[in-house]
């Protein structure tokens, strides 16, 4: 059952979709997804990424949970192996794109003005400036916001959501729409776990499971232990899964295998 064609209108809920019609009026049944326009553009983006064999990661979190710092560390670790580019979404400033460029990879800033999320059209608008054929991984750092970006497909392969240890282990229960569609949850700033003492990664993991989401929940830190080995490992597995997948699919779902890093 999908939400696209009206097949989710069943005998049980059909009365909600129909209504008595007053004289002089016409009731038109539409049954179309409200964000169908965004979804069509996302599908077009996805087809372009697939044709160029680019792994696209939509990185989301609240402001200040360490998305840009994680990208900086990831670029430093991987840029000798993979060709990386970044699209940065922020309400204002070029600051994050400048930080990324300092690490020697192309970065395009989308300044959204007052818009609280990126959408598929905004991303399509900057793709002309990116040589997709010369890119292996495109990270899209979404606007820092755990609410609005969840509603807008960009054409990515995977959603990765950061949850920093300073935010609270119950964030997935508070923002279910965001966390239920995460393909990977990274517990960032995990080097602070011993200092904070009150963030239990297993509670965060359980909160993700309560959303019927099997996504791995991996602690990471760009300073000190546990490092970002598990995240890099996950990325390598995502790249391998993409290379194995000749057909275009909405998701390159793969089963993450925990490495020996522990």
């Amino acid at each position, binding site marked *: *059952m999908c939400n696209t064609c009206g097949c989710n209108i069943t005998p049980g809920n059909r009365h909600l979709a129909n209504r008595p019609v007053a004289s*002089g009026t016409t009731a*038109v*049944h*539409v049954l179309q997804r*409200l964000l*169908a326009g965004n979804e069509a553009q996302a599908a077009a983006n996805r087809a372009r990424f697939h044709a160029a064999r680019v792994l696209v990661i939509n990185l989301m979190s609240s402001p200040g949970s360490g998305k840009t710092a994680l990208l900086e560390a990831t670029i430093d670790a991987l840029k000798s192996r993979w060709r990386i580019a970044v699209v940065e979404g922020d309400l204002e400033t070029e600051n994050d794109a400048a930080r990324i460029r300092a690490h020697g990879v192309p970065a395009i800033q989308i300044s959204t003005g007052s818009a609280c999320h990126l959408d598929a059209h905004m991303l399509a608008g900057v793709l002309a400036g990116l040589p997709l054929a010369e890119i292996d991984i495109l990270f899209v750092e979404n606007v820092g916001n755990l609410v609005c970006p969840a509603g807008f497909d960009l054409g990515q392969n995977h959603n990765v959501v950061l949850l920093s240890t300073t935010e609270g282990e119950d964030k*997935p*229960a508070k923002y279910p729409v965001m966390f239920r569609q995460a393909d990977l949850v990274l517990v960032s700033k995990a080097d602070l776990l011993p200092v904070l003492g009150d963030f239990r990664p297993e509670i965060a993991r359980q909160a993700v499971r309560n959303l019927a989401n*099997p996504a791995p929940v991996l602690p990471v830190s760009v300073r000190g232990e546990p490092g970002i080995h598990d995240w890099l490992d996950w990325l390598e597995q995502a790249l391998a899964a993409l290379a194995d997948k000749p057909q275009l699919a909405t998701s390159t779902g793969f089963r993450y295998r925990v490495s020996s890093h522990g």
Partner: protein
Amino acid sequence: MHELAVCQALLGQVISVAAAQAASSVESVTVAAGALSGVEPALLERAWPLAAAGTLAQTARLEIRVSPVRVRCRLCGQETETGPNRLLCAGCGSWQTTVLAGDELMLLSVTLVRPDASQAGEETHV
């Protein structure tokens, strides 16, 4: 607040239906917004007049049907109603469930005023 962006997308669909049916105005718009759709009905209601101002739909009433979340358990097969941040099977407690309803965000129907509509009223589909 992405409800305004949602409203603008909704308005685009409503106006294209109204234009295709040669309507003189839009009387009402009915939307389904599940509890897991990420859209807050009260905010959608407040954003609607802003988006619709100056269009065929500017006096249209927006009706939002909020559907509860229903899941089917992949282990025991039961279908149960649940809350948006607890998508567990109410039967066996498993988290291995599939969401059946509650994440939809759809335009269900539009009621149009048409100069040439019959007095009895009519229904149509697109």
